[in-house]
Structure formats: C-alpha cells, structure tokens
C-alpha cells in the first residue's frame, strides 16, 4: 500500500483515508477472488453443458443408471457440504482470535474435503471395474472429465487449507490475517456450490 507523507498545507483528511480506501469498499484480494470465481463458473459451465449436450445420446454402455450409486455419492456429497460449515467456523474462530479452534476447523475442513476426494477415487475405481472408461463412450468422457476437474479444484483447496493450517500452527496466521482465511473460504464454498450443481444435474436428474 502506498504511503504518502502529507505535504504541508494540504488537506489532511483526504490522505488519511487513502490506505484502506478502495473504490468498491471491497479489498483488492477479495474482489480478485470474486472475479476469478466468476470466470471459473464459465469453465465449469462449459463442461456441464458438454455433459448435458451428450446426455441420453445413443451410445454403448455402461449407462449412468448402470453405475451410479446414489446413496454412496449422497454421503460423500453431504460430507463435502459439511466442510463448508467447518470453513465458516474456522473464519469465525480467527476473527475472534481463537487460534486453537482455528487450527481444528481448518484441519477438519481439509479432512472432510479429503474424505470427499477419497470417495471420488473409490467411485472412479468402481466405475472403471464396471467397464466405464474415459474412451468407452460419451458418458464416460464427459462424466470423468467434469467430475475429475471438480476433484482437482477440491484438491487444490485442500492444499490451500493445509498451507493455512501450517501457517496457523507456527503462529503466523493472526486475526489481522483473517481475510486470508475468508478468501480461501470463498474458494471453498464456491467449489461446494459447483458440486451441488454437478450432483443435481449429473447424478440426480433422471434422463
């Protein structure tokens, strides 16, 4: 941030606001994250469109109904959604200055995310055993690439959360840095919301 020594005889009040002042009132980093997420919406939008575009087209099996295990995926989806709750608790903890709970909730969020990824790996393996591969049919191609890229997003989020957790354990993450947790949280919630869309559109809506 810029700091300007005020030249004599100049309006002091104007300069005092300068450091935190942003045109929108939202900090630069947070605004940048919102913009990135808006961009990422279209990224997922393109893959979800491709999935919908090909859904129900005549193709060799296995078909979605042959492989989906809705109860299992519902459970892992629920775990992922719960990680949004722990994310909020982590943010609340750092704002309060409760660093012990901050570490707990950050780690819990990462672990819930990792559980979801574990579930996804299990699911992919299971589908593969039942004969669904990337090159088998249109469903395999569009399903694996879409959900795989979502999984990559979750994995990046887990690494991010663990990095924050590492900083927190060293005492480098204090209440003043709460925005860093908030921004990681924005990303994390976004990834969850995308999963709600994917789970609904890809798994739940019958064709």
């Amino acid at each position, binding site marked *: 941030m810029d700091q*300007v020594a005020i030249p004599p005889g100049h309006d002091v009040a104007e300069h005092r606001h300068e450091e935190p002042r942003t045109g929108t009132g939202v900090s630069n980093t947070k605004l*940048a994250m919102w913009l990135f997420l808006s961009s990422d919406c279209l990224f997922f939008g393109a893959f979800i469109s*491709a999935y919908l575009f090909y859904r129900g087209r*005549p*193709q060799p099996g296995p078909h979605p109904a042959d492989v989906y295990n809705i109860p299992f995926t519902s459970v892992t989806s629920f775990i992922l959604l719960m990680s949004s709750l722990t994310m909020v608790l982590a943010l609340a903890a750092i704002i309060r200055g409760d660093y012990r709970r901050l570490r707990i909730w950050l780690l819990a969020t990462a672990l819930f995310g990792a559980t979801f990824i574990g579930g996804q790996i299990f699911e992919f393996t299971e589908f593969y055993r039942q004969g669904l591969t990337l*090159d088998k049919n*249109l469903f395999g191609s569009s399903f694996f*690439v879409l959900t795989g890229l979502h999984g990559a997003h979750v994995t990046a989020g887990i690494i991010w959360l663990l990095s924050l957790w590492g900083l927190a354990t060293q005492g*480098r993450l204090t209440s003043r840095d709460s925005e860093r947790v908030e921004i990681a949280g924005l990303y994390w919630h976004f990834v969850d919301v995308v999963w709600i869309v994917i789970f609904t559109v890809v798994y739940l809506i019958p064709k």
Partner: protein
Amino acid sequence: MTTVSDTVQAPARRLRVLRRPQATTGFWSWFTTIDHKKIGIMYGTTALAFFVIGGVEALLLRLQLAGPNGTLLTAAQYNELFTMHGTTMIFLMGMPLAVAFGNYLIPLQIGARDVAFPRLNAFGYWGFLMGGLFIYSSFFIGGSAPNGGWFGYTPLTSTPLGRGFLPGHGPDFWAVGLIILGIASTTTAINFVVTVLNLRAPGMTFMRMPVFTWMMTVTAFLTLFAMPIITAALIMVYFDRNFGTNFFQPANGGDPLLYQHLFWLFGHPEVYILILPGMGIVSEILPVFSRKPLFGYPVVVFSGIAIGFIGWGVWVHHMFATGLGPVAISAFALSTMIIAVPTGVKIFNWLATVWRGAVQLRTAMLFALGFIAMFTLGGLSGVLHSVVPADTQQTDTYFVVAHFHYVLFGGLVFGIFGGFYYWFPKLYGRFLDERLGKVNFWTMLIGFNLTFFPMHFLGLLGMPRRTYRYDTGLGWDFLNQLETVGAFVIAFSVLVFIVNVFVSRRRGRLAGGDPWDARTLEWTTPSPPPMYNFAEIPHVEARDDLWHRKYTEDEAGHAVRIPSGAAVAVEERPAGDGGGDEPGGGDHGDGHGIHMPSPSYFPLILALGLPILGYAAVFHALWLVPIGGLIAAFGLYAWAIEPQTEP
C-alpha cells in the same frame, strides 16, 4: 537469477528463500520488475516482435499465392504458416498489444501509482511470453507447428496422433499453449478490473474515466468470461487427442458442432477483445487533435458496454453454413444486425468529434482517421454476413478474409499505431519523427488496401481460403499478384516504423510532460513518468480533468487558457525528481517517502513452471511433471509468503 542465495530461514517471523531483488534499473531489473510501466513496455516490445514474426509468415503465404501453382511452400508448410499467422496475430500480437497500452496507461489515466496486483501483473507478462515461446518451439521439437487453423476445428485437430489427418504434435502445442496464454490473460484481466474498480483517484468517478480505460475495462470483463470457455474446449481437444475421449469424435457419437459452439462463444467476444482497445485509443486521440471534447462521451461509453453484452449473442453467425435450422439462424442474424448499431453510434460520435474541430493532422491523428475509414469498411462487409444467404455464399472464401482484416488490421492495428505515435512521447520523453510517421501512415494505408481490398473480389469470384495453390485461368491471377505487392508495401511501412522508433528514441525532438496539450491525467506526469507516477495522488474534478486545469471558457464559449501560475503545471517539476531509478522500498530522499512494491523473482519462476508442465502434457513425459510442478509450487509459495513491499 544472479543472486540466488542459500536457503535462509531468516530469524523471527521472516520467511524468505531468495534475497529480495533491489535493482530497478539495468538489464536484470527487467526480469524482476513489477512496475506497470516497464511491464507495459515489455508487453509492447514482445508483442511487436511477434507482430514481425506473424508478418513474415504472412509474406511467405503471399509469396506462395503470388501466382498460380505456387511452389514456394508445400501444402503442409502452408497449413502451418496460416495457422501460426492467425494464432500469432490474435493471441501473441493483438491481445498483448492492447494489454501493453492498458498496463502503461490505466494506472496513469485513473490517477493510481500502479495496478492492484503488481506481481500478478508481472506474472501475466511472463505467462504470455512463455506461452508464445512454447507454441513457437513446436517448429523445432514438435514435428510440426500447429496446423489446424487458429480456430482448430474438430475432429481435424482432435483426432489422436497416428489416427489423425494432421502430422506431428502441432495441435497439442496449440491447445496447451493457448491454455497457458489463457491463464496469463485471465490474471491480467482480473488485475485490470480490480485496478479500475478500486484504485481510482478521489473524484475519478466512472463517468469521468477516460474512454480508453473504459474500453479496457469492458475488454477485461470479456477476457474474464471468454477465456474459461476456450480453455474448457481446449482441454476437451487435448483429452480427445491424448486420452481417447469422445467429445468430438463422430465415430463414437461425439459432435464436432459442440466444439464450434464453444469455440465461437469464446471467439466472437474475442473479436471485441481485440477491437475495443483500438476504439478506446481512437477515442483518446480524436478529441486531442480536433481540439474538442469527445462528442457524446456517455453514449460512446455505453455503446462500448452494449457491444460487450451483445457480443455474447452473435457467435452463431460464424456457423451459418452448418445447418442449424431456420429459427436459430434467424435469431443470430438479427443479433448480428443489432450489434452493428452501437458500433455505428460510435463511428458517428467520432465523426462529430472531428466535425468543425481545429484538426491537427499529426501522424497519430492520421492513424485515428484511417481507423475510422477502414473499420467502417470492415463493419459494412461484416453486416453483410448477417444476411444468411449471402453469408452462406461467402463462407470460407476470401471475402471473409477481407472482412476480418479490415476490422482487425484496419481497426486494431491502425488504432495501435495511432496509439504508438500519441503516447511514445510519454514513454520516452521524445516525439516519434513526424516525417517518417507520415511515410509510415500512407504506405500502410496504401499497402493495406492493396492487399485486402482485392480479397473482396476474389472471394466473390469464389477463391476459397486456406488453399495453398490455385490453377491458372480462374481469373484470380492479377488480383493475387496485386495483393502480394501490397503485403510488401505493408512490410516496408512496418520497417519504417521500427526505424522511426530506434531513431527517435535517441534523437527525437524532446517532448515535455504534456506535448499535445492533451486532456487526460497521464499527461500531468513528467515524460517518462517516475516510478511512482504521481508524487501526489491527483484530485479529479471533471472529465478531461487536465483540460479543465488548463482552460476555461469566456462568455462566448471559447476556450481560454488559464494563465500559468494559477494552475499547477505539474510537468514542470524538476527532472531529477526520482526519475524512477531509486530502489523500490525505503525512503526516496525526494521528500515524499512513497512506498512502492518491491521487485520480485517469483512471478517469473511461477511462469517458468508452466511451459515445462506443457511439454510434459504434449509428450506424455511424466518425469517432467515433478520438475515443472516443483518450480511452479516453489514460485507460488515463495510469492505467497513474500510481502508485497519490503519494509
């Protein structure tokens, strides 16, 4: 990278890996700079180099087509060259040149000291350079350069190597390289939007912003929403080629039309990404050299925004020949006609700006007027494409080539060259030579029309695009010859420009801070501006703030110069004041104590990881993944723990 120190875990709460670079001058400082002005110059220089490369490719294409049955190039070479010509001119010349102007000018025009994220800005540049070098390295190690057209239609590009029609790794390099470029331009777009939304000087309301900054903001939003779509399409192409997915494989039910929809849903906004900055530049030049304010500023701004919105609803006019059915085609024919309206509004606003002005025909003004004329021609042939029967006839003929060169060369390139002549004095404190400039302009105008106007006729005569040779006796020989001559006239013109830059940088006439008696904030700074741009953040009171500081109106409504002394002539500050060459951090000893962000290695290091991962993706070289991944991760983490400004 001379100062890589041993890994130091600095005492007490200071993590650091590399000693912070300090130099802001000298050769090595260019690798670590985070100054938006230097990065702007780097963007500009690199993009001009790619412009020359893409131009040489065009000359080779024209030489091949100079006469019937050309033998200079083989069909395969011709495919590589037209693909790389298009890819270069759009992704490596057009977009980065616009970003170059945006980088240099947006902070200066809104009264900020830098962009919102200086290091991310540096990363954007390095990502662009790496992406460009990555794509071009395919000439040497890919077996073939990209050869499926800049649009990369599937299944031609997506059929796996060995089973496909295209030899070599060209399409892989193309897909992965464009993804790298997409990452870079997305970060730049985010940076520009945050800068404009958050860093405007006090009083710089949206409706006081210079039109160039406005158009760059619209462009940044378009980039933000268009790049992810092509990234998704390119990932599908890459997976189809390399992992056997079926997205675009008709044999397995895949639909190549999906690719066309995704590509043009990106591709048409991309057209506006390229032209809006040109419109912005022209909107800056015309008022200054007409000695009048821009006619209908709000209308110009809103029509720019309207273009930004409607631009998302016209993409199917690239696909009229694919048989989508009458309803879809009628809807997109209508939207294509509608988008001509805001464009036409702008043209009339520009004409009204020049109307009865005290026009000064400097080179910058000539290019701006050339822009209006040539772009209007391109716009007119563009509206023809909304007439579906005509479009179906013109699809894949040289008529289309003529159209988009009138828009992109006659539009963007003329605008950019006008911008060079207009802002060069700001960058280097010296004017570009006017005599060479006029040679530059007139040869470019003549060469351009000689090259591209006959293409309208050739297209209507049925000459198809992308064919590497044609038979004699089709009535195409003379016009093709003419075009090749024209292409070399353009090349001469560009050469004159390059000579002009080198001569004028050293020996050009000295320009002060405000050599054109201009209207916007960048001209309140010395030329070149110091590293911190503004010693004092300006307080903006009007649109065209600088003009209102210099002029007032008498009773008859004529502009009257405010006697100097009453207004603060900022450009008269002593030249030794900073000059942009002291270390970024710490006190400056100039009495202002401005803290600027410090240089950094990490944007470059992070960007270095990208092409390595790219090669891993193209050649399936798993051993490269940890190398590229570690370099990128190192850059990312070191960046994250490095404070933006050294205390």
